[in-house]
């Protein structure tokens, strides 16, 4: 369950990244469509957090387990904080910051999957 969900989250975050870059290039501000996509990413990350914590016991190495937990907890903070910043900022840089956040989510979720793959 964790693996397919991670890939869905990575896919959505990548889509969000591409969309944000497109908006930045076109000099458009954030709208409901992108915000809804970010909300989907956020829901995915929260479900991942719950599933990951429930299955944390499967990771035997203590360092890896701690990294996994730290990523799980950190990830949902990113879409929320970048969305708040992006809504307040009224220049095209806002979409740039949203793109950076989406990229970070995609990379961190992939890293999460790498750790999980080694044990599941």
């Amino acid at each position, binding site marked *: 369950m964790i693996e397919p969900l991670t890939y869905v989250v990575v896919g959505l975050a990548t889509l969000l990244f591409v969309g944000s870059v497109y908006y930045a290039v076109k000099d458009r501000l954030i709208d409901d469509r992108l915000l809804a996509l970010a909300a989907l990413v956020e829901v995915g990350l929260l479900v991942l957090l719950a599933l990951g914590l429930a299955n944390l016991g499967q990771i035997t190495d*203590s*360092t890896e387990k*701690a*990294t996994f937990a*730290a*990523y799980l907890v*950190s990830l949902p*903070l*990113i879409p929320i*904080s*970048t969305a708040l*910043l*992006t809504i307040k*900022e009224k*220049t095209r*840089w*806002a979409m*740039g*910051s949203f793109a*950076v*956040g989406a990229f*970070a989510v995609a990379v961190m979720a992939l890293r999460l999957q790498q750790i999980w793959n080694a044990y599941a």
Partner: protein
Amino acid sequence: MPDPTRRALGGPGVVLVVVYGVLALAATGRSLLQILSGFDRAPLAYALSALAAAVYLLATWCLARGGKWVRVGTWACTVELVGVLAVGAASFLVPDAFPDKTVWSHFGQGYGFVPLVLPVLGLLWFRKVEREAAAAEQAEASPPDAGQPGSGRTPDAPTA
């Protein structure tokens, strides 16, 4: 109260805040893990990780707040730059002192060299904010039509 003339968040600053925020999150996570899982294993590397995390958190705060924090942020970025250069060089020259990695090891290679580039961008951004604020203050102190000999600024070409 935030100083409106030293607003560091607008424009490119908002991107810097996000990048700094993510790095601060990653550095804090790593540092907490390292210290909780056994500080004795690599005390120097772990202490440096904690220092790096604290400085990144501080820089993120300064970028977001602006105002009087611009000066603090300049110092934070300077410490980061010195840190990444010193620790980066040391991790190559005396690898034995760093049995475990820090954010600054090998010039931030583990983080895509972002820790090396970020303080430079931060310093440039803070300098721009500071300069614009200084220019605005000067303009306010002496209105342009009052005539300011020796101010070093060329006024718009007179049409007369």
